[in-house]
């Protein structure tokens, strides 16, 4: 294991992120506050509680997941797309590193940043609504697992994309809708029967649901199912990345 290389990539990526730290923190914090104002105040005035939980508090796990997913994907996809775009990837490809080391360095840095962001959102939320976390260890575990999984997913998108449009395509077209339809802001029990069944095919539901369970000790689907689903997705992403390096997909001609 080339630990020096992992460290080098990780530190380099983190310093790149530090340069844009302010904007990357300000915008999610601002949008979280807006969500609270809009959803919490406007909707919260009509729906006071969901499953016995104050609505403002109920949406916190969903909001964090939304930020976590979006940021993990965009950090990681950009992190690997950029060197490809400017050509500096040559150095990584000519270095004595294997795919695992490259992925740990790049996706690890991206995941770190979104975990930090997730915690900042949590702190921001705390200013607006009362929060009590039932299972803090599991909460952190979900946070880390989701950040890592979706950083891997972003890494895959970054390698696959050969222009900026493609880089934006999947996050905009697939991920954002899935997050909004995955029960981030409501309980699926509030949906009509058929839509409840459709939602069960949305992987984000399991993330949000499991995460919410760690906060309130109750959720739409069982926490075990949630964990298994994230695990499956993580494995799927790992296999794709492994295959990409094995075949040199879009990296080596």
């Amino acid at each position, binding site marked *: 294991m080339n630990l*020096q*290389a992992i460290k080098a990539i990780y530190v380099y990526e983190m310093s790149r992120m530090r340069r844009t730290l302010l904007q990357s923190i300000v915008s999610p914090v601002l949008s979280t506050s807006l969500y609270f104002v809009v959803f919490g105040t406007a909707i919260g005035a009509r729906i006071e509680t969901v499953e016995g939980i104050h609505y403002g508090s109920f949406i916190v796990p969903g909001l964090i997941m939304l930020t976590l997913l979006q940021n993990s994907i965009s950090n990681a996809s950009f992190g690997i797309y950029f*060197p490809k775009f400017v050509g500096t990837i040559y*150095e990584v490809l000519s*270095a004595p590193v294997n795919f695992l080391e490259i992925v740990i360095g790049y996706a690890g840095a991206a995941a770190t940043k979104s975990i930090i962001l997730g915690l900042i959102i949590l702190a921001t939320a705390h200013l607006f609504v009362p929060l009590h976390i039932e299972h803090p260890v599991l909460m952190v575990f979900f946070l880390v697992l989701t950040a890592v999984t979706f950083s891997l997913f972003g890494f895959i998108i970054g390698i696959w994309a050969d222009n900026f449009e493609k880089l934006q395509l999947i996050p905009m077209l697939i991920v954002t809708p899935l997050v909004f339809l995955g029960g981030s802001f409501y309980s699926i029990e509030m949906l009509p029967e058929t839509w409840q069944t459709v939602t069960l095919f949305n992987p984000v539901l399991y993330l949000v649901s499991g995460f919410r369970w760690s906060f309130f000790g109750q959720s739409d689907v069982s926490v075990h199912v949630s964990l298994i689903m994230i695990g499956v997705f993580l494995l799927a992403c790992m296999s794709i990345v492994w295959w990409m390096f094995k075949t040199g997909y879009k990296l*080596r*001609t």
Partner: protein
Amino acid sequence: MQNAISVQQLTKTYDSGLTALHSVDLDIHDGEILALLGPNGAGKTTLISIICGLVRPTSGNVLVQGHDIQTDYKTTRSLIGLVPQELHVETFESVWNTVTFSRGLFGKKPNPALVESLLKDLSLWDKKDAKIMTLSGGMKRRVMIAKALSHEPKILFLDEPTAGVDVELRKDMWQLIGRLRQSGVTIILTTHYIEEAEEIADRVGVINKGRLVLIEEKNELMRKLGKKQLTLELHQALQTLPEGLSQYDLSLVDGGATLVYSYDTQAARSGIGSLLADLNRSGIAVKDLSTKQSSLEDIFVSLVEGAR
């Protein structure tokens, strides 16, 4: 002598169907400076890219100090430093950070003293905290050289290192290459400038259309293929060559005022003595004379032209 690199039957066909290398065999000796010459699109960069791990070979093998570049890539890549042909740099990063990053990436522990001496050697020390985008093209190339040397490679590839580089930097670069060679580093460089190969290489390889058409000690090459020319300035211009001189390889230039005699340095006798005697006999007076050895450039052009 152990080979630094041994290329065996290396073939590369790109996805486009274009075969950039046709079964190339090449041994690069430990500690030498090898210059690879060849016209645009000859396959020089492809060859280097395969050895460095950027491009996958279609067939054939490459051994770096006896290690296979595919099965033992971690070993081979940590021995190699690469300065690619294109300028690829992180625009927003500082010179210091980017060079430090390269060292770590190649698995070496941080060594600020080494990075400092590298930057000083390359006259980049006063720019160490500058963002790379604020540097000139020549400085960026030096940054890329610093990155390639940051992990103390045993083998250094320089793909057209002098493209877009001024005389001063070129001189610095030759000095640096000289020092590296002294310390035992094997250096492979590609160039379009034949004088460069003539100046610093120990051996010269010529690649044309994906084939290694020649590989030879530079001195040997110049001796073997080198023709000499004797240039005679005449007192009076000639219209035509006199009958009695037809056995010599002569040509009239400068409107007949100059006579050029080509002869082979390898031949037992140059024929200069008898030519001068014959000229004298024909009543042609010579004002001045000089000889010139044909350069690598002539050799190169004749090789590449010959293959067309």
